[in-house]
């Protein structure tokens, strides 16, 4: 009872301090509004406005039809260039795709002479080139077949494949980047807020004061977890309902309350690690540098940017130890795929367990680090 009272009252103080710290307040507001909106403008997951050029050496109806088939939003209207410009323009990254239609292409197609058409792809523009080359092939093939069907009629394939993409039928990047942006922000802010709360108390000398009062490190750490966790939870809720769903009109399939439960569990971990590095760092700049080293891999490799499947297996295994990976995974399950508690509870448990571990570690470091800081 005493403990709960202490945790509660210390937490109210934490909230008051936070509301007076305009830099951190501004950071939270920016991170959950403008930064999310900016990420909605990212097309990193799909082919969008890909620049295409066409070298038309055929000047036939078919070559014109192919050119016209490259349409927004996937492709920009194609530009006509000459053959000798292919290399310099691709070198300058002007075009990701250059389609070279050889002379007499239409005639050869009609004559069944199996002509070859070249699609040059800048294979350093990874996502766009990878997906776009498939699209380009399909578009050209369809155009040729349509062109021919006017004359012959295409026979149906013996086996047809119908690929359906569930949970995000149009594979819109914004659905992904905005929600993942929120998730990355949760990690970022929880570490910063909890870590800064520790370092700030130490720099202001109030930590010494707390430690000579009848409160335990556990109570101090817990108060920071609940207060900073509450701030972020509220911000996440507002951001999901009003920014993502309201302003950006992105549908959320699953239960937001269930997701929020997961957020709370994850925040326990993230605040614990924030407190932990707050006890390791001896000044704000050191906190910041440590934060970068921890946050960047946790964020970039959690599966919220590039798929976990594409990492080397050893790295993917290592990343299983990071709760951010599980957080991204259950967030995707809940928010995109509408999964329920029956599906995600093992991950909830895992995150809570790793969080508990860091929390114990943080408390263990607490008093010894405070002693060092006094130097």
């Amino acid at each position, binding site marked *: 009872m005493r403990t709960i009272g202490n945790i509660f009252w210390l937490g109210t103080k934490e909230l008051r301090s936070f509301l007076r710290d305009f830099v951190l307040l501004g950071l939270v507001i920016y991170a959950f509004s403008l930064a999310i909106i900016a990420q909605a403008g990212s097309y990193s997951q799909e082919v969008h406005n890909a620049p295409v050029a066409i070298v038309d050496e055929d000047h036939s109806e078919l070559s014109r039809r192919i050119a016209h088939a490259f349409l927004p939003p996937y492709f920009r209207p194609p530009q006509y260039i000459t053959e000798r410009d292919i290399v310099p323009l691709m070198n300058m990254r002007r075009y990701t795709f250059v389609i070279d239609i050889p002379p007499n292409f239409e005639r050869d197609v009609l004559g069944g002479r199996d002509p070859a058409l070249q699609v040059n792809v800048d294979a350093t523009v990874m996502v766009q080139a990878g997906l776009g080359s498939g699209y380009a092939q399909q578009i050209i093939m369809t155009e040729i077949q349509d062109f021919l069907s006017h004359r012959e009629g295409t026979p149906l394939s013996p086996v047809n494949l119908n690929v359906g993409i569930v949970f995000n039928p149009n594979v819109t990047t914004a659905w992904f980047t905005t929600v993942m942006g929120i998730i990355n922000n949760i990690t970022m802010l929880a570490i910063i807020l909890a870590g800064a709360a520790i370092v700030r108390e130490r720099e202001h000398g109030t930590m010494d004061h707390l430690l000579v*009062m009848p409160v335990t490190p556990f109570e101090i750490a817990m108060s920071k977890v609940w207060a900073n966790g509450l701030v972020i939870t509220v911000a996440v809720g507002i951001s999901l309902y009003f920014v993502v769903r309201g302003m950006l009109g992105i549908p959320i399939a699953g239960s937001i309350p269930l997701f929020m439960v997961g957020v709370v569990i994850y925040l326990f971990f993230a605040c614990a690690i924030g407190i932990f590095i707050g006890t390791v760092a001896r000044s704000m700049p050191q906190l910041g540098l440590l934060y970068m080293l921890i946050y960047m891999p946790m964020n970039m490799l959690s599966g919220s940017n590039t798929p976990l499947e594409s990492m080397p297996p050893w790295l993917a295994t290592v990343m299983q130890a990071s709760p951010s990976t599980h957080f991204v995974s259950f967030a995707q399950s809940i928010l995109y795929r509408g999964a329920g508690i029956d599906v995600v509870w093992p991950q909830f448990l895992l995150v809570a367990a790793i969080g508990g571990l860091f929390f114990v570690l943080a408390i263990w470091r607490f008093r010894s680090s405070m002693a060092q800081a006094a130097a």
Partner: protein
Amino acid sequence: MNEATRPVARLDAVTQRYGHTAALTAVSLEVPAGCMVGLIGPDGVGKSTLLGILAGARQIQSGHVDVLDGDMADAAHRDAVCSRIAYMPQGLGRNLYPDLSVAENVTFFARLFGQSRVERQWRIAELLDSTGLAPFADRQAKKLSGGMRQKLGLCCSLIHDPDLLILDEPTTGVDPLSRRQFWELIDRIRSRRPGMSVVVATAYMEEAERFDFLIAMNAGNVLATGSPNELKMRTRSKTVEDAFVALLPTADRAGHKKLEIPPRRVIGAEPVIAARDLTCRFGDFTAVDRVSFTIERGEIFGFVGSNGSGKTTTMKMLTGLLPPSEGEALLFGKPLDARDMAARLRVGYMSQSFSLYAELTVRQNLDLHARLFHLPAAKGKARLRQLVAQFGLEDYLDQRASDLPLGIRQRLSLAVAVVHEPEMLILDEPTSGVDPLARDRFWELLIDLSRNQGVTIFVSTHFMNEAARCDRISLMDSGRVLATDVPANLISARGVTTLEDAFISYLEEATGLRTAQPTPGAPLDSTSETARPTSPQRAFSVQRLFAYTIRETIELLRDPIRLTFALFGTALLMLVFGFGISTDVNNLTFAALDHDQSHESRAYLEELRGSSYFVEEAPLANYAELEKRMQSGEIDAAIEIPPGFGRDLEAGRPAWVGAWVDGAMPFRASTIRGYFQAMHQLYLADPAVKTTLPQPPPPARIELRFKYNQDFDSIYAMVPSSLSMLLALFPAILMALAIVREKELGSITNLYVTPVTRIEFLIGKQIPYIGVAMANFALMFLMALFIFQVPLKGSFLVLLLGAFIYVTTTTAYGMVISAFARTQIAALFGTAIMTVLPASQFAGMMTPVSSLSGMAQIMGRAFPMTYFVPISVGTFTKGLGFADLGGVLAELALFIPVLTFISFLLLRKQER
């Protein structure tokens, strides 16, 4: 007294406001030349503001200020006279560089004033000799004692033979012996250069007795000016301190009476605290060395000594905050145990930095502490009322602690410390910075607690008159107790008249034993008087620029954390990103829902199973399982073969296969779809698949040519991109800390008051970070070649040139933020926010910037990395050279002047 005809400075109706507090209110004043002028008054009355204005470090808001016959609002005049003024700001060595050695510090200042090597060398030698610092020339400033640090500050100020020397509280927190030596040094310097004017602010009223002319200040106003004797006569006081109190407005003096200390009644002989041979070491530095003392119940026990003499460390050991390295402490007769909650309830502690939550109000602070000590609600309320009345806090209840005057804040700190009625109070320098009146009021409270409530008080101070009020004191120096006794006994034991003299006598004895204190040096060489600064003022000086470069480099090399972080942090992240960020989608999981279970359906699935991209999971039994396993993310895709697939195929009817792909990650989903379609085409073309329908040959072949990267392996794009990203983040962050650090630590003053210009300052500081970033680049380049096996196909020179321009822009990017921000934390997170998002999302690492839209596109275009990714990927993977990349190099280079100019505009040459 030296009566100069013209004043060295004249102020006319100067008013400075900061927020809603007025630091100076219509101050008009003439400062006489060629003599020693003292500025007296407590903290926060505008002394520092006034001195800052005289030195040209602060911007004048309203009014007129003439210094050395010119208008200080005029930048040209400031530039002209700054080499004739020397300014030593408040705080021990605040304008010094703690990581630099004594000689390096002085050399830095000499360079700023454009002195040649020869001139520099004899001047430094002479100054160090005369201040007795010569034997410590190679010691780092941070390892100097307070007194030595102030002497070093003085050396740095005197390096250019100023006509006006401005010292802001040069002796605060310094031990009495060093203080005395400091003033002797000033006297010697003045006897050598009688024309020099000295303006000094001080909080020690005793020191003011020795000045020629005093300016007494209170609450932004000048109370009186005149020689010490004039002031004393005018107020019929015996000391300057009494004169100052008499000069205060009557309202401030209300209720002030001479402090009476009733004699202590001895309550019980058993000691409340007993320390035996307490020792505390930090590494090889001994902060507290075998300290022993006992404090009896109801006693006021004082710890007296300079900053850094071990007072705070000892107190921290007694509160359990620090474990002693050796020795033991008994609290209430029991060994000290940091975990003993019951003991904590009996102790109140007030740490040196006020142990208050500045953002809470008075009421909230008291309330919080009452609750943490678990006073029952009713008792707590009563206690708060009592404390508020006792400590005179009624008028401030709902003000935030940060807005309170210092004296009130200290009373609140004490109130907070006694909320739970402790038996013992540990107070660490509770009165530093407070005016004499507030100090007396504070002591009234202490005496009441001690004499009437039997509270034992352990207090530390560096004011001798406060020390004299204690029942017993320990004199401390360099971590040792020199003597412990009743103040009067200490005085008589040394045969002197004041406690200060007694302390000095003890110090001299200890110094003689230790010989660590500098001996007063040889008299100044009088022949040097002929040499005046010879270098004319120039608008741009490479020497000044390099002064900053050299200094920043030394600091960086001596900061292992920043350096390690800069070099190995990037290497580590390069390793992680190089392996981790990949767009090669493989190891995809799928499961089959085969309703047909025919030979044909298995043949179709066989096509997938043979693929290296897919890993098959246990087959699905029904739709419900499909849904659940996809929801949990266990499988990325599912293939459904309907009943009758084989039969349809056999009969020549078109058959259908369904595939479901998890769209949670759009890129992965699109890729899987592409794989499925390709696989399907392979299946159709497979001659082993016996379909009854003849398959027409395709009308044309589409040849995909993956240029630059035939295997379409993402490592060839991602490693050069990761290199670009890391060169955007880390140099920017390091640079961002560089300028704002000086703002926070105070050495930015040197930009304000020395001839160095903003451009010299900015570029001078940027150069070392460009160097570090280039070292980073070299490291990552080698990692790319040898660890990731990404060969460099194009021109190395272009890549090197590009990297150089690029890190110049990214450091400049950090510079802009640093010039704008006021705290390190704001600069750090500002930079992190403004670089991480654009670098990872909007700078062409995953998507070409031209394909972005709206704000994302704008953020991408305004970020230098957008222009370096083509250079890095171009030279590594595309094999390009200057002909192809010249344009983008030029675009990148454009950032340099733009960002530098913005920083220039944001950085101020004067403090507001």
